């Protein structure tokens, strides 16, 4: 029989707790550097530069004081890559994750923003749970955890369209441009834009979400998609929306695309927007 590695559920709880602590008070160095570069080199609007400066000073204050960098500490999004040789013991996976979220949000003085029911019973759960959990089973005996507290400025203006088979890269670019333009100041620009192309509607949505979490500057390994990313970034920044939507040349820090094989009859495209408070953290157990 193949070897299995036992992993205590409490380890998952502990890891999730730690990751949300970290993610809520500090952004990745890639986004930080991109904001610095935008302030010092790219942004032509003086007002835009002053917004970026405020945002950067805020990042330093949040990190040093261990306080959440945005008051909207978001919905807890958790991606798990579960090695198929792992045997989780001492509790269920979803429960372990939710316990970690609950502890982090309570102990960190993070805002709890989840209501029990979207339509009929908008009561706060009081714990910021349940988390939104996406699990993949992968080879090996490791557990990969990627968490992202997601504020709703960007979610509120994200969009889905299904392209017909005759449509292509140009329509994708136009869809992204139109979505960013319609969003205007609402998602707290400069943003990170994730685009999922192909598969089914929910597969495209998950690809788009994951794409928002790629490091700034990462390009799609397929040269054609990489070029489409850069072209789209250029077109989006030419909209002039700028930092906080006050007008400027940096509306978006980067556009990331991901694609999957599609049905002959249609291509779902999801555009997911993430604000400049692009918080996430990852660890492997």
């Amino acid at each position, binding site marked *: 029989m193949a070897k299995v590695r036992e992993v205590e559920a409490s380890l998952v709880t502990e890891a999730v707790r730690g990751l949300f602590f970290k993610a809520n008070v500090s952004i990745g160095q890639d986004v930080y550097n991109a904001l610095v570069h935008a302030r010092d080199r790219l942004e032509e609007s003086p007002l835009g530069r002053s917004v970026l400066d405020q*945002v950067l000073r805020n990042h330093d204050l949040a990190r040093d004081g261990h306080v959440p960098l945005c*008051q909207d500490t978001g919905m807890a999004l958790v991606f798990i890559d579960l090695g198929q040789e792992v045997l989780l013991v001492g509790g269920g996976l979803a429960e372990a994750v939710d316990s970690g979220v609950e502890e982090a949000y309570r102990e960190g003085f993070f805002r709890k923003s989840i209501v029990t029911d979207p339509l009929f019973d908008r009561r706060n759960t009081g714990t910021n749970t349940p988390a939104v959990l996406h699990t993949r089973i992968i080879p090996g005996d490791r557990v990969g955890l990627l968490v992202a507290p997601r504020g709703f400025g960007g979610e509120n203006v994200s969009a889905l369209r299904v392209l017909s088979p005759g449509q292509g890269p140009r329509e994708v670019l136009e869809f992204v441009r139109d979505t960013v333009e319609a969003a205007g100041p609402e998602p707290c620009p400069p943003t990170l834009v994730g685009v999922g192309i192909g598969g089914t509607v929910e597969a495209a949505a998950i690809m788009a979400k994951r794409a928002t979490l790629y490091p700034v500057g990462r390009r799609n390994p397929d040269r054609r998609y990489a070029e489409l990313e850069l072209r789209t970034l250029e077109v989006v920044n030419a909209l002039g929306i700028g930092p906080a939507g006050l007008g400027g040349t940096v509306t978006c820090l980067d556009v990331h695309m991901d694609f999957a094989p599609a049905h002959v009859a249609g291509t779902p495209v999801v555009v997911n927007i993430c604000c400049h408070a692009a918080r996430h953290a990852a660890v492997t157990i």
Partner: protein
Amino acid sequence: MRHASRLVAPLDDEAVRPLRSGDRVLISGVILTALDEAHRRMTEYARENRALPFDLEGQVLCYLESSPTPPGRVCGPIGPVASGRMDPYTPLLLDLGLKGMIGRGRRSPEVIDSIVKNRALYFGAAGGAAVFLSGCVTRVESVAWPEMGPEAVFRMRVEDFPVVVLVDARGNDLYRDGPARYRGGGSPPSKEGLTGGP
């Protein structure tokens, strides 16, 4: 860019008149917070001709939400919510004497018309600068409707709270004019900026 001007809240016509959309302003003094639920309540009071438990005359109302207050701090991180949520209630409040609002995001044409009619200002505070903004708050006290919890009405004493005039008393809207100024412009994405990742 003009230097940031200083304003003391509450405001009067004199203070509002010279400001133009795009101006940076540092607000000091006393401002009120109110979100959706409080707006609904204020509207009910006005419709029933009841006096509000606080005076709106000259006030600056901010649409700020916060994370819980950690021990030893005046307030948790604070930031503006999407102001559009308050649009249906706003013209009535402006008619009642409200002079300024702080939030983020676009307002309806009705709100902009009412801002002009009542010679008021709509200010923007940056989203995602919550710790920085909370550092400008020196005192928070509950004013009305404590049963609304964090959404109750609070009076906040602020010092040099940084905002930008989004809509001025002539109806100029920075969300329209700012992007128009930079549309089509902008440098091509620089290679350097795109490889800053770790």
